[in-house]
Protein backbone atom coordinates (compact mmCIF):
# COMPACT_ATOMS: atom_id res chain seq x y z
CA UNK A 1 0.00 0.00 0.00
CA UNK A 2 1.43 3.34 -1.07
CA UNK A 3 1.91 6.17 1.39
CA UNK A 4 -0.61 8.21 -0.56
CA UNK A 5 -3.23 5.48 0.04
CA UNK A 6 -2.69 5.80 3.81
CA UNK A 7 -3.08 9.56 3.63
CA UNK A 8 -6.20 9.26 1.49
CA UNK A 9 -7.84 6.68 3.75
CA UNK A 10 -7.25 8.85 6.79
CA UNK A 11 -9.45 11.55 5.20
CA UNK A 12 -12.28 9.45 3.83
CA UNK A 13 -14.70 10.17 6.68
CA UNK A 14 -14.12 13.91 6.33
CA UNK A 15 -14.66 13.56 2.57
CA UNK A 16 -17.96 11.69 3.14
CA UNK A 17 -19.13 14.46 5.48
CA UNK A 18 -18.03 17.18 3.05
CA UNK A 19 -15.58 18.58 5.55
CA UNK A 20 -12.48 18.89 3.40
CA UNK A 21 -11.56 21.84 1.23
CA UNK A 22 -12.53 21.76 -2.45
CA UNK A 23 -8.93 21.30 -3.47
CA UNK A 24 -8.40 18.36 -1.11
CA UNK A 25 -11.68 16.79 -2.24
CA UNK A 26 -10.54 17.06 -5.88
CA UNK A 27 -7.20 15.40 -5.03
CA UNK A 28 -8.87 12.64 -3.03
CA UNK A 29 -11.40 11.91 -5.77
CA UNK A 30 -8.63 11.82 -8.35
CA UNK A 31 -6.86 9.18 -6.26
CA UNK A 32 -10.07 7.19 -5.83
CA UNK A 33 -10.64 6.96 -9.56
CA UNK A 34 -7.25 5.29 -9.92
CA UNK A 35 -7.12 3.10 -6.80
CA UNK A 36 -9.72 0.30 -6.52
CA UNK A 37 -8.68 -0.59 -2.93
CA UNK A 38 -9.15 2.96 -1.70
CA UNK A 39 -12.46 3.04 -3.59
CA UNK A 40 -13.56 0.04 -1.54
CA UNK A 41 -12.59 1.88 1.63
CA UNK A 42 -14.51 4.93 0.45
CA UNK A 43 -17.61 2.79 -0.18
CA UNK A 44 -17.29 1.37 3.35
CA UNK A 45 -16.80 4.85 4.82
CA UNK A 46 -19.83 6.17 2.95
CA UNK A 47 -22.07 3.30 4.06
CA UNK A 48 -21.09 3.36 7.76
CA UNK A 49 -23.35 6.24 8.92
CA UNK A 50 -26.35 4.50 7.38
CA UNK A 51 -25.40 1.17 8.93
CA UNK A 52 -24.99 2.79 12.34
CA UNK A 53 -28.41 4.44 11.96
CA UNK A 54 -30.03 1.08 11.31
CA UNK A 55 -28.28 -0.83 14.09
CA UNK A 56 -30.70 -3.33 15.57
CA UNK A 57 -32.62 -2.50 18.74
CA UNK A 58 -32.68 -5.61 20.89
CA UNK A 59 -35.89 -6.52 22.67
CA UNK A 60 -35.77 -4.98 26.17
CA UNK A 61 -36.10 -7.49 29.00
CA UNK A 62 -39.73 -7.88 30.13
CA UNK A 63 -38.73 -6.94 33.69
CA UNK A 64 -37.46 -3.49 32.68
CA UNK A 65 -40.84 -1.72 32.74
CA UNK A 66 -41.97 -3.27 36.03
CA UNK A 67 -38.61 -2.63 37.73
CA UNK A 68 -38.59 0.99 36.54
CA UNK A 69 -42.15 1.65 37.72
CA UNK A 70 -41.37 0.03 41.08
CA UNK A 71 -38.32 2.27 41.54
CA UNK A 72 -40.27 5.37 40.53
CA UNK A 73 -43.08 4.36 42.91
CA UNK A 74 -40.51 4.23 45.71
CA UNK A 75 -39.31 7.72 44.74
CA UNK A 76 -42.88 9.02 44.81
CA UNK A 77 -43.50 7.47 48.22
CA UNK A 78 -40.24 9.01 49.46
CA UNK A 79 -41.35 12.44 48.25
CA UNK A 80 -44.71 12.06 50.01
CA UNK A 81 -42.90 11.03 53.19
CA UNK A 82 -40.70 14.13 53.02
CA UNK A 83 -43.63 16.48 52.44
CA UNK A 84 -45.59 14.72 55.17
CA UNK A 85 -42.78 15.38 57.65
CA UNK A 86 -42.62 18.98 56.49
CA UNK A 87 -46.35 19.35 57.20
CA UNK A 88 -45.83 17.88 60.68
CA UNK A 89 -42.99 20.33 61.33
CA UNK A 90 -45.10 23.28 60.27
CA UNK A 91 -47.95 22.11 62.52
CA UNK A 92 -45.63 21.74 65.52
CA UNK A 93 -44.05 25.14 64.94
CA UNK A 94 -47.51 26.72 64.68
CA UNK A 95 -48.60 25.06 67.94
CA UNK A 96 -45.44 26.27 69.68
CA UNK A 97 -45.88 29.78 68.24
CA UNK A 98 -49.53 29.90 69.26
CA UNK A 99 -48.57 28.63 72.68
CA UNK A 100 -45.88 31.22 73.16
CA UNK A 101 -48.24 33.94 71.81
CA UNK A 102 -45.54 36.40 70.84
CA UNK A 103 -43.20 38.44 73.06
CA UNK A 104 -45.41 38.37 76.13
CA UNK A 105 -45.66 34.58 75.85
CA UNK A 106 -41.90 34.32 75.50
CA UNK A 107 -41.37 36.52 78.60
CA UNK A 108 -43.90 34.45 80.49
CA UNK A 109 -42.11 31.26 79.45
CA UNK A 110 -38.74 32.74 80.51
CA UNK A 111 -40.29 33.68 83.87
CA UNK A 112 -41.72 30.19 84.33
CA UNK A 113 -38.43 28.58 83.38
CA UNK A 114 -36.50 30.81 85.82
CA UNK A 115 -39.04 29.95 88.54
CA UNK A 116 -38.75 26.22 87.75
CA UNK A 117 -34.97 26.31 87.79
CA UNK A 118 -35.04 28.22 91.10
CA UNK A 119 -37.50 25.71 92.56
CA UNK A 120 -35.35 22.76 91.52
CA UNK A 121 -32.20 24.44 92.90
CA UNK A 122 -33.96 25.06 96.22
CA UNK A 123 -35.10 21.43 96.33
CA UNK A 124 -31.53 20.33 95.53
CA UNK A 125 -30.20 22.51 98.36
CA UNK A 126 -32.74 20.98 100.75
CA UNK A 127 -34.50 24.33 101.29
CA UNK A 128 -37.80 23.47 99.66
CA UNK A 129 -40.11 20.59 98.66
CA UNK A 130 -40.06 19.06 95.16
CA UNK A 131 -41.42 21.77 92.86
CA UNK A 132 -44.67 20.91 91.08
CA UNK A 133 -44.06 21.01 87.30
CA UNK A 134 -46.19 23.47 85.39
CA UNK A 135 -48.38 21.47 82.98
CA UNK A 136 -48.17 24.13 80.24
CA UNK A 137 -44.37 24.10 80.29
CA UNK A 138 -44.29 20.31 80.12
CA UNK A 139 -46.63 20.41 77.12
CA UNK A 140 -44.40 22.96 75.36
CA UNK A 141 -41.35 20.84 76.14
CA UNK A 142 -43.10 17.85 74.57
CA UNK A 143 -43.93 19.86 71.44
CA UNK A 144 -40.31 21.06 71.14
CA UNK A 145 -39.00 17.51 71.65
CA UNK A 146 -41.34 16.22 68.94
CA UNK A 147 -40.25 19.02 66.63
CA UNK A 148 -36.58 18.11 67.11
CA UNK A 149 -37.35 14.43 66.47
CA UNK A 150 -39.37 15.07 63.31
CA UNK A 151 -36.70 17.49 62.02
CA UNK A 152 -33.98 14.90 62.60
CA UNK A 153 -35.99 12.25 60.69
CA UNK A 154 -36.55 14.80 57.92
CA UNK A 155 -32.85 15.62 57.68
CA UNK A 156 -31.90 11.93 57.55
CA UNK A 157 -34.43 11.32 54.74
CA UNK A 158 -33.23 14.38 52.83
CA UNK A 159 -29.59 13.40 53.12
CA UNK A 160 -30.35 9.83 51.94
CA UNK A 161 -32.34 11.20 49.02
CA UNK A 162 -29.56 13.66 48.22
CA UNK A 163 -26.92 10.94 48.10
CA UNK A 164 -29.21 8.74 45.96
CA UNK A 165 -29.65 11.64 43.49
CA UNK A 166 -25.97 12.39 43.20
CA UNK A 167 -24.85 8.75 42.87
Amino acid at each position, binding site marked *: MAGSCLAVRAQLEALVDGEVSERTARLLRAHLTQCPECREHYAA*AASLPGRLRTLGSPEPPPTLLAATLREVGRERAGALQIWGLFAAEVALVLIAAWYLSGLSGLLELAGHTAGDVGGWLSWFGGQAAVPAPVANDLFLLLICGLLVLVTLCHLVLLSRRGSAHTS
Partner: protein
Amino acid sequence: MVPDAALPFFLARPPQASSPEELARAARGGDPAAFEILVKRYERRVYGLAHHHLHDPDEAQDLAQEIFVRLYRNLDRFDPGRPFEPWFWRLAANVAVNYGRRRPPPASDRDPQPAAARVPGEWLPLEGALADLDPGLRLPLLLHYYLDLGLADVATALELSLPAVKSRLHRGRRLLRRALSEEG
Protein backbone atom coordinates in the same frame (compact mmCIF):
# COMPACT_ATOMS: atom_id res chain seq x y z
CA MET B 1 -70.19 6.69 21.10
CA VAL B 2 -68.60 6.64 24.54
CA PRO B 3 -71.24 6.54 27.30
CA ASP B 4 -71.05 9.46 29.74
CA ALA B 5 -70.25 7.19 32.69
CA ALA B 6 -67.07 6.02 30.96
CA LEU B 7 -65.85 9.54 30.20
CA PRO B 8 -63.84 10.07 33.40
CA PHE B 9 -61.95 6.86 32.65
CA PHE B 10 -60.99 8.07 29.19
CA LEU B 11 -60.10 11.51 30.49
CA ALA B 12 -58.04 10.14 33.36
CA ARG B 13 -55.92 7.81 31.25
CA PRO B 14 -53.67 9.55 28.72
CA PRO B 15 -54.21 8.03 25.30
CA GLN B 16 -51.34 6.06 23.78
CA ALA B 17 -51.40 8.45 20.83
CA SER B 18 -50.52 11.52 22.97
CA SER B 19 -47.37 13.37 22.01
CA PRO B 20 -44.33 12.84 24.24
CA GLU B 21 -44.58 16.50 25.28
CA GLU B 22 -48.18 15.97 26.47
CA LEU B 23 -47.21 12.77 28.24
CA ALA B 24 -44.25 14.44 29.94
CA ARG B 25 -46.49 17.30 31.06
CA ALA B 26 -49.06 14.87 32.46
CA ALA B 27 -46.34 12.78 34.15
CA ARG B 28 -44.91 15.95 35.65
CA GLY B 29 -48.34 16.67 37.08
CA GLY B 30 -48.17 13.33 38.90
CA ASP B 31 -49.96 11.07 36.39
CA PRO B 32 -48.33 7.61 36.70
CA ALA B 33 -50.15 6.27 33.61
CA ALA B 34 -48.57 8.98 31.45
CA PHE B 35 -45.13 8.11 32.78
CA GLU B 36 -45.74 4.42 32.08
CA ILE B 37 -46.66 5.19 28.46
CA LEU B 38 -43.49 7.28 28.11
CA VAL B 39 -41.37 4.39 29.41
CA LYS B 40 -43.11 1.92 27.08
CA ARG B 41 -42.60 4.24 24.14
CA TYR B 42 -38.88 4.73 24.69
CA GLU B 43 -37.78 1.52 26.41
CA ARG B 44 -36.68 -0.17 23.20
CA ARG B 45 -34.40 2.64 22.08
CA VAL B 46 -33.14 3.37 25.58
CA TYR B 47 -32.33 -0.29 26.09
CA GLY B 48 -30.75 -0.35 22.62
CA LEU B 49 -28.48 2.55 23.55
CA ALA B 50 -27.54 0.86 26.83
CA HIS B 51 -27.02 -2.49 25.13
CA HIS B 52 -24.75 -1.11 22.39
CA HIS B 53 -22.88 1.05 24.89
CA LEU B 54 -22.26 -1.58 27.58
CA HIS B 55 -22.60 -4.88 25.67
CA ASP B 56 -23.78 -6.64 28.83
CA PRO B 57 -27.51 -7.46 29.24
CA ASP B 58 -27.61 -7.01 33.03
CA GLU B 59 -25.73 -3.72 32.99
CA ALA B 60 -27.77 -2.54 30.01
CA GLN B 61 -30.99 -3.12 31.96
CA ASP B 62 -29.52 -1.33 34.97
CA LEU B 63 -28.51 1.67 32.85
CA ALA B 64 -31.86 1.77 31.02
CA GLN B 65 -33.68 1.75 34.35
CA GLU B 66 -31.45 4.51 35.69
CA ILE B 67 -32.19 6.63 32.62
CA PHE B 68 -35.94 6.36 33.23
CA VAL B 69 -35.62 7.03 36.96
CA ARG B 70 -33.54 10.11 36.16
CA LEU B 71 -36.22 11.16 33.66
CA TYR B 72 -38.83 10.92 36.41
CA ARG B 73 -36.70 12.98 38.80
CA ASN B 74 -36.05 15.66 36.18
CA LEU B 75 -39.54 15.97 34.71
CA ASP B 76 -40.09 19.27 36.51
CA ARG B 77 -37.12 20.70 34.58
CA PHE B 78 -38.68 19.85 31.23
CA ASP B 79 -40.14 22.83 29.39
CA PRO B 80 -43.34 21.50 27.73
CA GLY B 81 -43.09 24.29 25.17
CA ARG B 82 -40.00 22.63 23.71
CA PRO B 83 -39.62 19.26 21.98
CA PHE B 84 -39.25 16.37 24.38
CA GLU B 85 -36.87 14.12 22.47
CA PRO B 86 -33.70 16.25 22.27
CA TRP B 87 -34.09 17.07 25.96
CA PHE B 88 -34.67 13.43 26.88
CA TRP B 89 -31.81 12.05 24.79
CA ARG B 90 -29.44 14.64 26.25
CA LEU B 91 -30.46 13.46 29.69
CA ALA B 92 -30.06 9.81 28.65
CA ALA B 93 -26.61 10.53 27.23
CA ASN B 94 -25.63 12.27 30.43
CA VAL B 95 -26.68 9.30 32.52
CA ALA B 96 -24.82 6.94 30.17
CA VAL B 97 -21.63 9.01 30.44
CA ASN B 98 -21.79 9.13 34.23
CA TYR B 99 -22.68 5.44 34.41
CA GLY B 100 -19.57 4.69 32.38
CA ARG B 101 -17.44 6.80 34.74
CA ARG B 102 -18.85 5.18 37.86
CA ARG B 103 -18.69 1.51 36.96
CA PRO B 104 -15.49 -0.56 37.22
CA PRO B 105 -13.27 -0.82 34.13
CA PRO B 106 -14.89 -2.96 31.44
CA ALA B 107 -13.96 -6.60 31.19
CA SER B 108 -12.16 -5.84 27.92
CA ASP B 109 -9.53 -3.89 29.90
CA ARG B 110 -8.71 -6.94 31.99
CA ASP B 111 -9.42 -9.57 29.38
CA PRO B 112 -7.05 -9.78 26.41
CA GLN B 113 -9.86 -11.22 24.29
CA PRO B 114 -11.56 -8.46 22.26
CA ALA B 115 -15.18 -7.66 23.08
CA ALA B 116 -16.18 -8.65 19.55
CA ALA B 117 -15.08 -12.22 20.30
CA ARG B 118 -17.05 -12.32 23.55
CA VAL B 119 -20.37 -10.97 22.31
CA PRO B 120 -23.12 -13.38 21.36
CA GLY B 121 -22.84 -15.19 18.02
CA GLU B 122 -25.91 -13.48 16.56
CA TRP B 123 -24.23 -10.05 16.77
CA LEU B 124 -23.46 -8.39 13.48
CA PRO B 125 -19.79 -7.66 12.73
CA LEU B 126 -20.59 -3.96 13.10
CA GLU B 127 -21.96 -4.49 16.62
CA GLY B 128 -18.86 -6.46 17.55
CA ALA B 129 -16.55 -3.76 16.18
CA LEU B 130 -18.58 -1.12 18.01
CA ALA B 131 -18.26 -3.06 21.25
CA ASP B 132 -14.47 -3.02 20.86
CA LEU B 133 -14.33 0.72 20.35
CA ASP B 134 -13.22 3.04 23.15
CA PRO B 135 -16.36 4.30 25.02
CA GLY B 136 -15.24 7.87 24.37
CA LEU B 137 -15.65 7.21 20.64
CA ARG B 138 -18.56 4.77 20.86
CA LEU B 139 -20.96 7.06 22.73
CA PRO B 140 -20.81 9.98 20.24
CA LEU B 141 -21.44 7.49 17.40
CA LEU B 142 -24.43 5.99 19.20
CA LEU B 143 -25.88 9.37 20.11
CA HIS B 144 -25.48 10.91 16.66
CA TYR B 145 -26.29 7.99 14.39
CA TYR B 146 -28.25 5.45 16.42
CA LEU B 147 -30.32 8.00 18.36
CA ASP B 148 -30.23 10.63 15.62
CA LEU B 149 -29.16 13.42 17.99
CA GLY B 150 -27.89 16.60 16.35
CA LEU B 151 -24.20 17.44 16.64
CA ALA B 152 -24.92 20.36 18.98
CA ASP B 153 -26.97 18.12 21.27
CA VAL B 154 -24.22 15.50 21.32
CA ALA B 155 -21.72 18.20 22.18
CA THR B 156 -23.91 19.47 25.04
CA ALA B 157 -24.58 15.99 26.38
CA LEU B 158 -20.94 14.98 26.35
CA GLU B 159 -19.63 18.41 27.39
CA LEU B 160 -17.46 18.62 24.30
CA SER B 161 -16.93 21.30 21.69
CA LEU B 162 -18.51 20.82 18.27
CA PRO B 163 -15.13 20.24 16.55
CA ALA B 164 -14.26 17.66 19.23
CA VAL B 165 -17.51 15.78 18.54
CA LYS B 166 -16.86 15.83 14.79
CA SER B 167 -13.32 14.63 15.33
CA ARG B 168 -14.50 11.75 17.55
CA LEU B 169 -17.15 10.77 15.01
CA HIS B 170 -14.55 10.67 12.23
CA ARG B 171 -12.08 8.76 14.35
CA GLY B 172 -14.69 6.29 15.55
CA ARG B 173 -15.95 5.63 12.03
CA ARG B 174 -12.39 5.27 10.74
CA LEU B 175 -11.58 2.67 13.41
CA LEU B 176 -14.83 0.83 12.74
CA ARG B 177 -14.10 0.80 9.00
CA ARG B 178 -10.63 -0.59 9.65
CA ALA B 179 -11.91 -3.25 12.03
CA LEU B 180 -14.60 -4.30 9.58
CA SER B 181 -12.20 -4.40 6.60
CA GLU B 182 -9.75 -6.52 8.62
CA GLU B 183 -12.58 -8.92 9.47
CA GLY B 184 -13.79 -9.03 5.89
